[in-house]
């Protein structure tokens, strides 16, 4: 087994720019690989369904440029996972284009790039379903059926370490991967060097969000992770940040159902018996992780489908009497919609998001409303047809201006209209698939292509 050192400067490449000073410090720490995850499901179902990046290309280019230049200068591989937020084919092609452009600009090369695609046509999953495959719902979701697939516009499969290991072994110097398990992009080079599944995936789990595993809280700072057979070592590169047992353990909990298990194709990482110890001022060593293989291989599928067009209108209310009787005012506004457009939920729907009262927590809000001085209401209308959504939304908002309450004093308008216009919103999508499908080979849903870049 060969000791391996990996640096990562960002937990979500492209959202906001990486911090160069700690990245340079990481580059000076003799890394063997530069790795960064670019994916997120937190951004909601729209980017996948509509196949649009959530991040700005300015910052994507900024981060890729910094990492590509460093990787070529140091002569080490660069691995980027879940290209352009969602890891669709568009995302992979966009990142390959950026690498090509940056290489041309800086006269880099020649080097070998591998692109790994993970988008799956809905028809391909439909065919597997018809052939008897189970599309198993994750964490309490029902299994998918033909109806679920009919509601789905776009699907990505989430790769494990295998396709990335393959291209590295075939000599790839830059890897642009479609949707990937966050920890697998770090695990792949460690597994190729002979490290255990437990250490490889734990190292990935700890590093996937970069400096979020250190303290104090900082984003976009570089972390060095290394494995040498005696555990996984995590070191903060920012001068004022440390990786401590508490910070690394806290990160094991982050954005997860529970802190003990991380599922990847082929099994799960078990962190129940992890032991965290401070080995120097900025470094924590972790031992005791195990990997529990499963007899079958399941690949995660993420799917998104368009639900409706959306339109928004914004109003504010200051009159304490109207605020105290807000539900009646909203009820009246809704009754006027029903009169004109038919029952809510049939062809259209409306949501009154009452900021200042319960817009944020809705039904989970336990605190009884204290009469706020003002409330802001975002009126959201969803409807199959965009023009009709706009028409309904304008009325849905303006009806708060004309709300009929018995003792209202302000009879010249019961709401403040911020701007008498309907705001166009992006269409509503929904996460239709958060499922897994059984495969014979963990590589079979992914396609790989090599390209030589530069002179």
């Amino acid at each position, binding site marked *: 087994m060969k000791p391996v050192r990996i640096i990562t400067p960002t937990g979500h490449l492209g959202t906001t720019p990486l911090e160069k000073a700690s990245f340079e410090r990481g580059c000076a720490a003799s890394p063997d690989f530069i790795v960064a995850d670019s994916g997120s499901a*937190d951004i909601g179902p729209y980017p996948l369904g509509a196949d649009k990046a959530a991040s700005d290309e300015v910052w994507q280019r900024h981060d890729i440029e910094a990492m590509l230049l460093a990787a070529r200068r140091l002569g080490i591989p660069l691995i980027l996972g879940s290209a352009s937020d969602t890891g669709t084919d568009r995302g992979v092609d966009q990142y390959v284009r950026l690498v090509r452009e940056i290489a041309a600009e800086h006269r880099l090369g020649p080097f070998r790039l591998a692109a790994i695609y993970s988008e799956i046509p809905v028809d391909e999953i439909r065919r597997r379903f018809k052939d008897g495959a189970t599309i198993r719902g994750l964490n309490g979701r029902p299994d998918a059926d033909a109806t679920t697939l009919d509601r789905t516009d776009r699907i990505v499969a989430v790769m494990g370490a295998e396709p990335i290991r393959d291209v590295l072994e075939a000599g790839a110097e830059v890897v642009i991967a479609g949707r990937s398990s966050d920890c697998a992009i770090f695990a792949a080079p460690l597994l190729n060097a002979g490290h255990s599944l437990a250490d490889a995936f734990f190292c990935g789990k700890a590093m996937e969000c970069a400096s979020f595993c250190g303290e104090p809280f900082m984003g976009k700072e570089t972390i060095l992770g290394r494995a040498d057979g005696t555990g996984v070592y995590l070191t903060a590169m920012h001068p004022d940040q440390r990786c401590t047992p508490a910070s690394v*353990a806290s990160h094991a909990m982050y954005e997860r159902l529970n802190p003990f298990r991380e599922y990847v194709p082929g099994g799960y990482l078990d962190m129940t018996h992890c032991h965290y110890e401070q080995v120097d001022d900025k470094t924590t060593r972790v031992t005791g992780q195990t990997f529990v293989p499963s007899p079958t291989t399941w690949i995660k599928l993420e799917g998104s489908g368009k639900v409706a067009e959306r339109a928004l209108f914004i109003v504010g209310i200051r009159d304490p009497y109207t605020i105290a009787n807000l539900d009646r005012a909203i009820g009246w506004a809704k009754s006027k919609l029903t009169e004109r457009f038919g029952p809510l939920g049939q062809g259209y*729907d409306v949501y009154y998001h009452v900021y200042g009262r319960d817009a944020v*927590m809705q039904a989970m809000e*336990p605190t009884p409303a204290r009469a706020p001085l003002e409330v802001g209401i975002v009126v959201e209308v969803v409807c199959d047809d965009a023009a009709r959504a706009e028409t309904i939304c304008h009325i849905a908002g303006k009806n708060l201006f004309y709300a009929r309450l018995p003792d209202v004093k302000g009879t010249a308008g019961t709401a403040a209209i911020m701007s008498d216009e309907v705001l166009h919103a992006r269409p509503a999508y*929904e996460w239709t698939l958060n499922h897994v499908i059984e495969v014979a080979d963990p590589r079979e849903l992914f396609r790989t292509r090599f390209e030589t870049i530069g002179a």
Partner: protein
Amino acid sequence: MKLVDLASTIRSKNAGVDHITFDVICRDRKNFERVRDSGALNRGAVAHLFGIEESRVTDFVVFEPANAIKFTIRRLRPSGGLGESDLFGSQQYAPLFDIEIP
């Protein structure tokens, strides 16, 4: 004492597209043991606080290495769906502040 005075971190965030997870991380071991042993934080208590069925609390764990208690709630609809108001699930934790820890 209130939970907010014993914890250094109280946060909520999506855990995948169907769940919101809550982390309560204590300042030190002493505070953690006080919170843990008080029994004030448990599945039933958080379900009651948020006014949801206990079956929607899918995970509830005491995580010793981080001096933390963590629980996860299943969303009624996936994040970003119709009528969404907290895409990242990041502002659902505030009601935990006022839990009395004896």
